[in-house]
Structures are given as C-alpha cells and as structure tokens.
C-alpha cells in the first residue's frame, strides 16, 4: 500500500488569496491525482499530475486557477489561486501504486 499525507489539513482563507496544498507519498508513484469534494458531494477530478510532464486538467478546471507541480515521484502541490467562497471544498490528493489508487486525508478549505 501507499500512505499519503497532505498539508495543511485545513485552512481558512480570505477571498482573492492563494493557497498551496502539499501532497507527500511514502512510495514512488508515476501517477498522482487531485480531486475536489464539495460539501456533501462526490469527488470530482481536477487534474492528473505525472512526473516530468505537464498536468492534464479535466473539463472545467484550468491551469491558471489550479496550478500543479510534480517535481519528483513522491511529491506534488496544488495551488488554489485567487480564491472565492465557491472554492470552499475538501481537496484530496491521490496516487496510483501497484494497481491500486490511494487517497490522502484531504485538505478542508474554507474561503471567507
């Protein structure tokens, strides 16, 4: 299995600011994913982040709003830029490891 940690676990931010969420995996993984889970809703994929290439964004998500870095095989960051209250969600990092997909504990973001 793979253990995934995220920082911060939660944050309260002012609108117009940006927050960078860090994701650390205890194993080397090729594929990492960032999901958003709005209150009481299901998970929606934001982007796929492969090491050594640009992130691939899903429909409705753009790089300017959600820039992603993937500097090595165990780490990724997601930045939520120019935040608005509509960005209040849980953001989950996920990684594919030996055929399974594991999830971090999530970052609960509240934008005031």
């Amino acid at each position, binding site marked *: 299995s793979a253990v995934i940690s995220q920082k911060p676990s939660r944050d309260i931010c002012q609108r117009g600011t940006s927050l960078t969420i860090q994701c650390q995996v205890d194993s080397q993984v090729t594929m990492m994913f960032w999901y958003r889970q709005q209150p009481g809703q299901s*998970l929606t*994929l934001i982007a796929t982040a492969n090491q050594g290439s640009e992130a691939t964004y899903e429909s409705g998500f753009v790089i300017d709003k959600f820039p992603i870095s993937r500097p090595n095989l165990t780490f990724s960051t997601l930045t939520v830029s120019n935040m608005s209250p509509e960005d209040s969600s849980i953001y989950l990092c*996920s990684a594919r490891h030996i055929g*399974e*997909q594991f*999830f971090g504990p999530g970052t609960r973001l509240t934008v005031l």
Partner: protein
Amino acid sequence: AQTVTQSQPEMSVQEAETVTLSCTYDTSESDYYLFWYKQPPSRQMILVIRQEAYKQQNATENRFSVNFQKAAKSFSLKISDSQLGDAAMYFCAYGEIGGGSNYKLTFGKGTLLTVNP
C-alpha cells in the same frame, strides 16, 4: 463519458444485519475496474473492494462482497454482519484500464450508511 449512478442517497441497517448498496454505471469499454470506497467522518477514503470487469467471479473481502452484473452494468456491495464501524459514506467508482489519464476514477454521488445498534 462514463457515468456512475448510486440511487440510494441514504441507507440504514441494524447491527449484525446485512445491507446491499446499489450502483450502476455506463461505459462503452469492455475492460475496466470497479471499486467501492468508504469515507468515514475522518474524510479518509478507504478502498473496500475492487472488481476487474474481465473476471466473472464476484470479489469478496471478509464481510464485503459484490454482485457484478456486467451485461446489466450493475455493481452492488453487500455488507454482511454489519458493524458500527461500517457507518460511513460509500462511493462506487469506475476506473478505466490504460495509460495516461485513463487511470482516473469516476465516482458516484455516494450512499450514506447508518448502522443502528
């Protein structure tokens, strides 16, 4: 695009009883994975069980088993001898087989399971 439908927003079960959560999906692919994930209040997504579409045998993991009906595109989860710790949101998910972003998962809206003592 693939879709996953969970038609039961909430379910409840008595402790020690059996409950079945429903899931249907839509895809044009012949090979894929199906998953059930559990998300307790801690928010940690936990893989409960996985089924490969090319396998006819239904997957089982201890008290958890699935009824996979490929032709009907149905993938239900049965929890036997329910325990208080089973209370959580359960998500059904579809995953493609392939490289690149095809490994992404498509999730249903979830079923909130309550276990009554």
